[in-house]
């Protein structure tokens, strides 16, 4: 004991850990209906740590050249001990991470946590989301398999549609007219050097701001609490951390289950001279954009359909980024809320459509849509008073979605 105290004292004297410890000890997390939403951020950090760990491991064997990329990934999953596990974990964790970030974004938006003075917390969060999407996009190409190769070709072509600077951006992204070995090197550098550095910096700011401003509480709850003499809270250490850890372990369990049930496949090596396969698809989180651009007519009035689409998604991104400043009153708030609802519906519809497009698989589409609805709808529960009509509506919707999901699954497995 004495030794330990001496050791702690040694560190204490030099590092001033008590400041950090004090911060953690004094940190309180409010308890209210929306408290579970606070776990999303922690879960995202946990998954990010998984990504760093597995990513570093993968980089030990991965070789970023078109001759060797596919072969090295193949060697990782076939020859290296537990390589299949590390790769599956990296791929699945990346997808879970983006999913969690989407939920984090959505719940934060619904709680209107971006209110003054947390505008910059929100904006750094959006930037982080963008960075993680870039992680996903660049990482998708690295195994240099057929699907990724052509998806990257399509994905970067979208950049080229941007008016005026599109062509230059395309050349910058691909390092040339086409997706080549140089593109692979570029994406690799982006994925393991540039994006991690940026992410650490922005994440640092984000976390500092969260710490500085404390947890945001929805206005309505604040108002209610005032009349009751304040809000109950739990200390971050150890109470909230323990609960956070439950979330992490659950994420770990989901990761293991996914890796066990659906090992991430490698596919065929990319051959730039082969015609594109029929079912090229980007990662699911880009699918809504991909599908929307695909079904857009070639010309919208005097403009090219694709240009309009790209500009539209660009504008959406800007609206999300500057949401804190657009939320200025009752009306604008209502407009933003309905826009968000439309966006979520659009996302669900387009993703389901894109996921199973090509084949006659309406039921599968319904199943996927059902799953997404079942994930998104519960987020509304904290915003509706128990017993109110709104809460009833959410329950009704959930029941309906589950019923549809059950019927569609039953139909699919029998048919």
């Amino acid at each position: 004991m004495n030794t330990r105290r001496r050791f702690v004292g040694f560190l204490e004297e030099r590092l001033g850990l008590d400041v950090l410890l004090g911060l953690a000890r004094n940190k309180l997390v409010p308890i209210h209906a929306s408290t579970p939403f606070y776990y999303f951020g922690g879960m995202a950090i946990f998954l990010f740590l998984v990504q760093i760990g597995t990513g570093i491991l993968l980089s030990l064997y991965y070789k970023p050249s078109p001759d060797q990329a596919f072969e090295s990934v193949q060697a990782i999953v076939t020859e290296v001990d537990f390589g299949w596990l590390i790769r599956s974990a990296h791929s699945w964790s990346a997808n879970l991470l983006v999913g969690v970030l989407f939920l984090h974004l959505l719940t934060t938006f619904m709680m209107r946590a971006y209110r003054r003075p947390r505008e910059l917390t929100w904006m750094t969060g959006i930037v982080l989301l963008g960075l993680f999407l870039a992680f996903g996009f660049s990482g998708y190409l690295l195994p240099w398999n057929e699907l990724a190769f052509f998806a990257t070709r399509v994905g970067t072509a979208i950049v080229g549609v941007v008016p005026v600077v599109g062509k230059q951006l395309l050349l910058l992204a691909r390092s040339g007219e086409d997706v080549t070995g140089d593109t692979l090197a570029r994406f690799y550098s982006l994925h393991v050097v540039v994006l991690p550095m940026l992410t650490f910096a922005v994440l640092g700011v984000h976390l500092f701001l969260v710490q500085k401003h404390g947890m945001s509480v929805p206005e309505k709850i604040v108002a209610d609490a005032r009349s009751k003499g304040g809000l109950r809270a739990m200390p971050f250490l150890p109470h909230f951390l323990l609960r956070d850890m439950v979330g992490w372990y659950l994420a770990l369990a989901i990761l293991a289950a996914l890796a066990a049930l659906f090992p991430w496949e490698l596919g065929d090596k990319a051959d730039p001279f082969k015609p594109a396969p029929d079912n090229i698809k980007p990662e699911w989180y880009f699918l809504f954009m991909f599908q929307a651009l695909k079904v857009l007519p070639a010309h919208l009035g005097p403009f090219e359909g694709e240009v309009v689409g790209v500009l539209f998604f660009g504008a959406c991104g800007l609206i999300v980024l500057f949401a804190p400043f657009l939320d200025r009153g009752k009306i604008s708030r209502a407009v933003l809320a309905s826009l968000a609802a439309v966006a979520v519906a659009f996302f669900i519809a387009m993703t389901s459509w894109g996921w199973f497009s090509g084949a006659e698989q309406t039921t599968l589409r319904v199943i996927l849509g059902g799953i997404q609805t079942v994930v998104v709808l519960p987020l509304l529960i904290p915003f509706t008073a128990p017993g109110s009509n709104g809460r009833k509506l959410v329950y009704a919707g959930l029941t309906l979605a589950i019923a549809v999901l059950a019927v569609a699954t039953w139909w699919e497995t029998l048919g």
Partner: protein
Amino acid sequence: MVATWGAILYPVLRFLRPRAATASGALEVVAPFRVKEILQAKNNPFDFGGKPCLVVLTPDGAKRLAAGQAIQADDLRAFNAVCTHVDCTVKYRQENGDIYCACHEGIYDLNGRNVSGPPPRPLEAYVVTLRGEPGQEEIVVSKQSPA
């Protein structure tokens, strides 16, 4: 808690362990026999990333080997041993000094050129390098061109 860390660290440590040397596979492979054994080698052609690979000795190389002189990489040729006619595996006929496909009697010379029978094209050539002590050299076959 200890169990969790164990479960995470065990795969990681196993992952870090060097993999088997011969199995890197896709772009280069070490022939399962040494240069001096080439004429007796039973496993020629051998597996090169799932395809058969054949190593042969040029006439000069054969003379040098018989005279007990040192063999250079230049005395060896390596080919994708898949016949260009209908994909049978070709073999090395030392006594005839050619490469022979038994299925339809296609014949290639020791440079892989199709010289007789139905094969329409030469064999796909690989690059040969030697490594190791003189007399004990290993044959390394690779797909990359020596830049």
